[in-house]
């Protein structure tokens, strides 16, 4: 973007808003908004604390286990739904209900089922992420051209070969798109789960900071989370780009 003939770098708007924030914070209008510089300082402080490092470990662990389950269950289920009519009929309605359902409302129920610990967070991450992965994998499999499957059959491919060499490869762009959105939803799931459970990981820290009005640390933690979600999404997006050359050309 250029303005009055000057090239404006990409992060400029971020810096501009940080400045506005800083000014509002310095004016001391509302205690909820401390100056940006103080937040950043608190952030550097925060990441060195034992409590933050422990919380991060717990959070990353729940997230990774929950996502692994979501991908491990979601991709095969979506592929089966795309290929087998009966399976699609059995699961289709449920997947479509859950993909748009306000799952946060279920977390209290999960707490009763799985206790006030990591298991509940893992299940929350799984539930947030899995449905979109299922739907995208299904959509990817359904767009595989019939003639491509016929082609493999006519040259003597077995069902396994057709699945591995044609269907999965052909559906890969959609499967990865589903995983990317699933990752973003999973981050929401891990945070919402921890906040609702409120005694583990970042949830405990959020609870602590907001109750003691420690707004610098509260915002620092929030920004760390935002950044983490963006980095995760960018990693998957990068993987998607590698196969874009044929996804766009289909």
């Amino acid at each position: 973007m250029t303005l009055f003939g000057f090239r404006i770098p990409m992060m400029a708007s971020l810096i501009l808003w940080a400045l506005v924030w800083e000014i509002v914070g310095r004016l001391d209008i509302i205690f909820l908004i401390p100056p940006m510089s103080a937040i950043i300082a608190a952030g550097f402080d925060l990441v060195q604390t034992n409590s933050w490092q422990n919380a991060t470990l717990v959070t990353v662990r729940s997230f990774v286990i929950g996502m692994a389950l979501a991908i491990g269950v979601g991709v095969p289920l979506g592929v089966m739904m795309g290929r087998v009519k009966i399976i699609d009929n059995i699961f289709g309605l449920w997947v479509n209900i859950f993909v748009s359902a306000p799952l946060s409302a279920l977390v209290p129920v999960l707490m009763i089922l799985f206790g006030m610990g990591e298991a509940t967070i893992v299940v929350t991450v799984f539930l947030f992420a899995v449905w979109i992965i299922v739907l995208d994998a299904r959509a990817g499999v359904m767009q595989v051209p019939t003639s491509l499957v016929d082609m493999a059959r006519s040259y003597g491919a077995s069902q396994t070969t057709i699945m591995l060499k044609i269907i999965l490869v052909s559906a890969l762009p959609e499967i990865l798109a589903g995983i990317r959105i699933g990752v973003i939803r999973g981050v929401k799931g891990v945070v919402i789960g921890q906040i609702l459970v409120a005694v583990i990981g970042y949830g405990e820290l959020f609870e602590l900071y907001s109750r003691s009005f420690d707004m610098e640390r509260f915002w620092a933690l929030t920004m760390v989370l935002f950044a983490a979600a963006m980095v995760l999404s960018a990693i998957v997006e990068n993987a998607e780009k590698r196969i874009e050359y044929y996804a766009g050309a289909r």
Partner: protein
Amino acid sequence: MSINTLAKEHFDPASIVTNDPVVRVEAISKHYGSVEALRSIDLEFERGKLTTLLGPSGCGKTTLLKIIAGLVPATSGQIIVNGRAVTGPGPERAFVFQDFALMPWATVLRNVGFGLELKGMAAAERNRIARRYIEEVGLQGFEDKYPHELSGGMRQRVGIARAFAVNADVLLLDEPFSAVDEQNRRKFQEDLLRLVEMERKTFIFVTHSIEEAVYVSDRIVLLSPRPGRVSNIIDPRIDRTANPDDIRRDPGYLDVVEEIWQGLRHYAE
């Protein structure tokens, strides 16, 4: 007369029988639910010849070709290839698809060698064979390109090279040139005749273009629509040693085209 194009019609069943049928279609019927797509089709396809299945849309010509390929099951009747009844696809038949059916993630070389890859042939061997057929269809230099980098005509050349590479006895071509523009189509038809000459294989060709059918075929099977039945069999008997442009201007060629058109026109609205 340098160009000898005598259309000979014969529709007594005895003359459909050929000496060396590579494919026999016996009483094939096909129903899709309550819709009758094909009714009791009997045909024989002579080895080394190019036979065209011609008819208006909805006559089931592609369905019949896919039944011969083993891709679509028949409701009744049987397909006999080289004297053996077949129920599914087999290595003695290779299919060329209307929409090319190329893998967009694979290079031309891998697409052409895919039939051999599925047979478990080692990479070096199948690439050698694939390169030979890529050259034969005039695509040398494009081995490492991806399908979306090629024109429609070039993509279908890849499809044809893939079918040749597996060295099947019978090549089944489902409207292979319908997605190719008119200029390339003519070039294609000439190339096809050259490949027929060179490869000495049996071709079964589906088209809805009368000119194309008359130009390339040794024998034309006319199908009537709803349900599909054999309505006529025509041998164009065109002297293919002549120049392609002369053939297309030849009165005999034009007469056969006209005759088929007259036979089909009552199916058109």
